[in-house]
């Protein structure tokens, strides 16, 4: 039983409405369209990854703006290509990345993992607002 229907019956039981009014209310409830719930599956997939940086150059007091739009397809294709890296090269790559402060296992880059990330990116917005340095960074998908 829906919450509204239960409420109407409770009102009838409490004597707040009479039987005719309750019947009218129930009829109105039946004819009302069901509330639509946004289905996450029908949500459009993001097409681009956007990076927008706004900053103020203190030295010259001039604004600098960076606006980057990368197609998601490019990320997908890049990851698929990374999947072709021979297993023998993984260790060298991992070591080189570790040396640069990125502890990352290249063998973990798989297209199926990327799809999962891209799905999650749909709801992602990163806002970095550094008022002291007058820098604003936004990373989002569209």
């Amino acid at each position, binding site marked *: 039983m829906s919450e509204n229907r239960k409420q109407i019956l409770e009102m009838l039981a409490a004597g707040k409405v009479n039987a005719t009014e309750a019947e009218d209310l129930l009829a109105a409830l039946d004819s009302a369209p069901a509330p639509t719930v946004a289905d996450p599956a029908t949500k459009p997939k993001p097409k681009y990854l956007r990076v927008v940086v706004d900053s103020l150059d203190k030295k010259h007091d001039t604004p600098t703006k960076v606006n980057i739009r990368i197609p998601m397809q490019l990320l997908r*294709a890049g990851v698929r290509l990374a999947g*072709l890296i021979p297993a023998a090269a993984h260790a060298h790559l991992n070591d080189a990345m570790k040396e640069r402060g990125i502890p990352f296992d290249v063998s973990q880059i798989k297209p199926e993992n990327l799809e999962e990330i891209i799905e999650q990116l749909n709801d992602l917005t990163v806002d970095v607002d550094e008022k002291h340095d007058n820098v604003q960074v936004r990373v989002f998908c569209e």
Partner: protein
Amino acid sequence: MIPLWATIQIGKFRLWLPLLLIWILLAPIVLLLTPVVAIVLLAVRVNPIKTFGMLYNILRATRGTYIEVAEARETVLIQIH
């Protein structure tokens, strides 16, 4: 579809680059290099067909890329259509 043209702007200088012409000019070189690259890929045990397919996908996916760095005096813009 592969990108057909690109816009490059440096300051007030704006250039519309017909990439299609570049692809046509590069096609003979690519055709000549393909067997050599394929042999090298086979030597390192990488599937050349898959690799070429993925490289083509990367090229195709660059469509829609937009990079703009704007300062008060200078603007650099790269757009691939």
